Each structure stands twice: as structure tokens, then as C-alpha cells.
């Protein structure tokens, strides 16, 4: 679905694995029926988890991408992360970058193309935005008339006169926007809507981010695409786009696509056609066809978070610890035997080289 012209001289690299999957994709999709089945399957798996761990019933569980990655890569570390790791830690300059970048880009599009609407044919492309200026303009607006979400946090900073924290947030937002425009291309693809809290703009949409299994109001599954391309309709001919300033490893990249595919299907009740992940640092663009294996992996990731959060109420063990570079920062590193062994052995390697 995303087929934007890329104005940069070097076409972004499409990773081989994602390309292979795209080539193998079938057609004849049933976007709504597939999402319905996924909802039932995930709900059933969550019920099984909760039935096996009665003490966990009623616990607040927030299943976002970060939790999914943590629980999948080292369940023991996820369980040890505590309330800060299990929920939304609150806005910070680092976390706000993408949200401000999306909102600022949408505001810019509103300003330069006031009559344009989603899906309309542009007569001429809008001028290229200047990211730092666009971010500053949005911050000024947010300070004057704060909306919800990240805008209210920005307004608080402005009221407090915290120009330095605002500058740090602006730095991240500018980097996000510049990378997004550079890699996705300008003008942006037609029918691309940025995901923001402000749905008044023709260039934005509120993504139905949250899904809760029936009767389980304390469990929230939340995807976090940055943009949606195409019409979100039962035909399923739409893509979810995620832009990251920095590239993940290939394994994490594929898992991110799987998580967004599944969480998006659960939230929207329709399965997207592709998940596209772009990276600002490398210019890479990986496109994943949303097929059964990808959705199954996404369902595993989601159920895995609920399982580990349920187990977190029990005594912490390191039985399923999976050591990695994250051990260096793990709150349980001093009490985790596998982690200690790894830190004393392979963990002494840094950046792919052994250390003396």
C-alpha cells in the first residue's frame, strides 16, 4: 500500500527477509474474519493464563510493544522490572519525541494545505517542512491551548518555564520528523494519516489503539503505529507504518512487525495488509505482509506479556532468564545466576569483540 516516491537519491534498503515474505504473500484475505478469530484466540489464551494463576486476576496489565519485547527476550527481567516496567512510565523528552513529531507534522500539513483532505488529489505538492520550525510552532500552540496526551505535558513544561526540557523534547521530535520525511518520502504517500490524539485534521486519525479481552477490563493491549496508509475498511487494504529513529536488530524488527500486526488487528477488528517499519539512522524500510505466521507470533508476544505479568506476583526466579546485553542494566543482575554467568563470560564481549 505504501508506494511513496522517494526523493532521496539513495532508495531505502528493503531488508531481504521482509522482501522475501512480501513475495510469498497470498491474496484473498478476510480482514475482518481473521481479526475476529485472532480476538477469540488471544482472549482464550489469556483466560487460560489467568485460570492457571488465580492470584493474578484483577492485576493491571498493559501490553505495549516495550513490554512485549521485554517479556519475550528475557521473561525474568520483565517480571523484575516492577510497576515502572509494567506500565506507562509517564512522558519524558525521550518518550515524547515521536508523539510531538507526528502532531507537529500534522499541524504543518494543516497549515500549508488547509483545503486538502485525506485521499484528495493534490494539485501540487506541499512545500517541504522545516522540522525544527514545525515542532516549535506546534509547541507554541500546545502551550497556548493544550489538548490531551503529550500536548498537556508540553503545556505543563511551558507553564513551568522549563525551556531546557522543552528543547530536549524538541530535539527528539525534530529528529523523528526529519527521519520520517526523509525515509518515507515527500510528499507523503496519498491517503497516509498520522496517528495523533487530534482527529480534527484531515491528515490524522486516531488509531483504535486499545483492545481489552471480553470481561477483562484490567488488561489492555495497545499497538502504536505512527501512521496508517489507506482506508481502514473491511477490505483490509491498509498498512500500518512504524518509524524508529534507530534501527533495531533484525529479530526485534520482525517481532515489532508481528506485535503491531496483531495488536492492530485486535484493536481495529480488521487485519492490515502490511506493517512497514522505517528507520531514520539507516534509511531502511522493511515491509512485512500480515499473514498467519506473523499474526501467530504477535499473539504469542501478547499472551507472553500477560503470562509473565501474572507470574510476577509469585516469588521471582531466574529459571527462564535469557542473558543478553540487557543484563548490564537489569535490576536483578546481582541475584540472577544465568545473568551473572553471562556477565562473567560472553557478557564481557562489547560491541561484538572480547574484552581483556
Amino acid at each position, binding site marked *: 500500500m505504501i508506494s511513496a516516491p522517494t*526523493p*532521496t*537519491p*539513495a532508495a531505502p*534498503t528493503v*531488508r*531481504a527477509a521482509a522482501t522475501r515474505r512480501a513475495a510469498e504473500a497470498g491474496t484473498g484475505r478476510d480482514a475482518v474474519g481473521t481479526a475476529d478469530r485472532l480476538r477469540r484466540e488471544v482472549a482464550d489464551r489469556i483466560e487460560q493464563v489467568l485460570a492457571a494463576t488465580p492470584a493474578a486476576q484483577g492485576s493491571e496489565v498493559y501490553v505495549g510493544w516495550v513490554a512485549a519485547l521485554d517479556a519475550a527476550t528475557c521473561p525474568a527481567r520483565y517480571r523484575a522490572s516492577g510497576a515502572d516496567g509494567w506500565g506507562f512510565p509517564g512522558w*519524558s*523528552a*525521550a518518550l515524547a519525541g515521536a508523539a510531538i513529531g507526528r502532531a507537529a507534522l500534522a499541524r504543518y500539513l494543516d497549515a500549508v494545505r488547509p483545503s486538502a483532505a485525506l485521499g484528495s488529489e493534490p494539485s501540487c505538492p506541499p512545500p*517541504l517542512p*522545516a*522540522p*525544527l*520550525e514545525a515542532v516549535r510552532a506546534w509547541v507554541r500552540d500546545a502551550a497556548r491551548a493544550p489538548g490531551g496526551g503529550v500536548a498537556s505535558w508540553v503545556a505543563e513544561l511551558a507553564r513551568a518555564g522549563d*525551556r*531546557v*526540557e522543552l*528543547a*530536549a*523534547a*524538541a*530535539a527528539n521530535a*525534530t*529528529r523523528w520528523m*526529519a527521519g520520517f*520525511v*526523509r525515509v518515507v518520502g*515527500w510528499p507523503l504517500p496519498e491517503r497516509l494519516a498520522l496517528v495523533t490524539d487530534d482527529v480534527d485534521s484531515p491528515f490524522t486519525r486516531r488509531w483504535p489503539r486499545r483492545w481489552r479481552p471480553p470481561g477483562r477490563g484490567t488488561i489492555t493491549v495497545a499497538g502504536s503505529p505512527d501512521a496508517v496508509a489507506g482506508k481502514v475498511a473491511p477490505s483490509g487494504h491498509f498498512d500500518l507504518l512504524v518509524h524508529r*529513529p*534507530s*534501527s533495531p*536488530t*533484525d*529479530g526485534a524488527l520482525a517481532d515489532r512487525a508481528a506485535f503491531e500486526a496483531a495488536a492492530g488487528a485486535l484493536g481495529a477488528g480488521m487485519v492490515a495488509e502490511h506493517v512497514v517499519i522505517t*528507520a*531514520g*539512522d*539507516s*534509511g*531502511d524500510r522493511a515491509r512485512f505482509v500480515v499473514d498467519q505466521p506473523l499474526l501467530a507470533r504477535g499473539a504469542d508476544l501478547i499472551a507472553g506479556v500477560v503470562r509473565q505479568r501474572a507470574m510476577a506476583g509469585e516469588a521471582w526466579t531466574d529459571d527462564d532468564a535469557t542473558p543478553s546485553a540487557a543484563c548490564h542494566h537489569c535490576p536483578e543482575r546481582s541475584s540472577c545466576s544465568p545473568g551473572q554467568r553471562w556477565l562473567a563470560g560472553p557478557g*564481557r564481549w*562489547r*560491541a*561484538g*569483540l*572480547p*574484552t*581483556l
Partner: protein
Amino acid sequence: MDSYHRSVLADLLAQPEELGEPVTGAVLDDALALLEDAAAAAVRDGGWTSDDPLRLSKWLLTWLLRCPRRAVAGPEPDGAVADLGGLVIGLIIDAGAKLATLTGRTDPITVDDALAFLDATGDTRASDHLADLDPSPPAATGATGANSAAGPPGSTGSDLRAEAGARLARLTATWPVIDPGWWPRVEEPVRVRLADGAVTLGGRLDVLLGGPPTGRPGLVIEVKSGRWHDAVRADAQVYGLLVGLRDGVAPAAVVTVAAGDGATQREPIRPAVLQHTAERVAVALRTASGLAAGEAPVARPGTYCGFCPLRDECPEGRAATKADAAA
């Protein structure tokens, strides 16, 4: 800074045609091909994969070429840093330059501003160290951060603040207001995947201006807290290669601004520079593959030995340090 240095950045931004035509096309293709070949060969011995790659940063690249033993020396015992004061000043200067880029402020950027910026970005090393040195710092430190409690140079947080403040004031007083059309970005990460991701060559730019899709030539600004020295040219060339491989067009130049002595150096990124830098990276890859395969790291002592974590146990380093002291 004298008037020449003061005008270098502002003049370049006002007259970008002075930067010359950026390198594109076959030169970059050739550099990438050379690196892909070198990475593929290195991976055969190094055993890296896309999920556990060799992450070749500018720091690692520098030391693989300069002294392989230092490259694998690891951190100081207990995480200590040989020149912590220098690190703190460097962090403050970097942050100040970024704030100046982002805000275009005409009023001075203070040490406290820079520290707050670092804290907001999650880097509390400078604040933590200053707090350790002076548990009760002065209430207001002004633009220079100086106060009357200064002892021997570097012995107190006040000394560090004063030194950082003086350099910061010199730097930001000459920092130009940057037109938004230059797309000023700070801390821009750049990464090039080689050998299907089993090797990544990466860096983080202090300030990046222009480049695709702005229609203006790319310009990288690197900020050094100390004095200019010839090795910064090699750093600049690596950044030029990285951005060129990522964007398909190299930055026209990398400008290094040294806050310690006010030097401003413009490194044009010409075809020969890119070719030479790619060859240096290829050499580093060969060294890295040998180290990963178990080869003993060679020591190449130099003036840097005094700051090396292995300075007390490296015979070559000790000999070099002793010879330096005798001279």
C-alpha cells in the same frame, strides 16, 4: 575566537555554494562495495550475525586502528574514567552547542542549562559527578559557572564549572543562528548495515544540517571541548562516509569546532577522502575479525597510554609513558 574563526560557520551557511558539489554516485558505490567485501570476509572469522553483530562505532574504529589492545581493554575497574573532569566538560560543551542550535538563543547558555539538557536526555553523568565533587554548589553560577571557592584546577566542582563555563561562553557567543531550511538536527544517529546486518558501522552526529531532501548540501558540525588536534580529521572523514552511504550523497564538509582553543576546521568530503576512509574501515574490520577469532591484541603505544585502562599492566604502554616522562 578571532574574527576568522567566528565567521567560518556563519559564512558557510550564508554561502553554501562555497561548500562545493557533494559527492554522489560511483564513488559511494565503490566505497560500499569495498566495505561489503571487507565485512563479508571479517564475518567469516568473526562469526557475527544480524542479531549479534559487530557494532563498529567511531570510538571502536579509532582504537582498532590506533591500538587494538586499547580497543578491547574494556572499562576501567569499577567503571571509573581516567579523565572524568574532561568527560564532564566535554558533555557540557556538547550540550551547550546543541542547545544553541535548537533554541537560537541570544542570551548566554549557562552550564546549568547544559546540565539540565543532559539530564532531560537521560545522561546524568555530568550532574552526578559535579554533585559528588561539590555536594552544596553555589545557588547561581551565571554564564561562566564560576564562584569564589576555586581551589587547584580540577579539584572541585566549582573549578570544573568555571572551566566548562568559560569554554561554553566562547563557543556559544560565536554560534550562528541557523536558518530552519537547513533542517538543523542534533544527535542524529547514522548507521550503515554491512554483510546483511552482521556488521554495523554507526555514529551519532553532534549537529547535521542540510542533505537530502532539503536541496542544500549536507554539513556536519562536530564539537570538541578541548583543543583541535589532527585526529579529529579522521573522525570527520568517518562521519562523511557514514552520511554519504546512508543518504546516497555525502555531506559537502564536516566542520569541527574546538571550544578549547577556538579552532574551526573545515574538512571537505572529497572522493579521495571517502575512498581512503573506506579503506581504513576495511583495515579495522580485518583487525576486528582477528580479535574475535582469538588473536592476541597488538599494543601500539602512544601519548594516549596515560589514559588507558590498561596503563598499569601493559608493558609497551608503561615503557612509552616512562619514555615520555623522561623526555
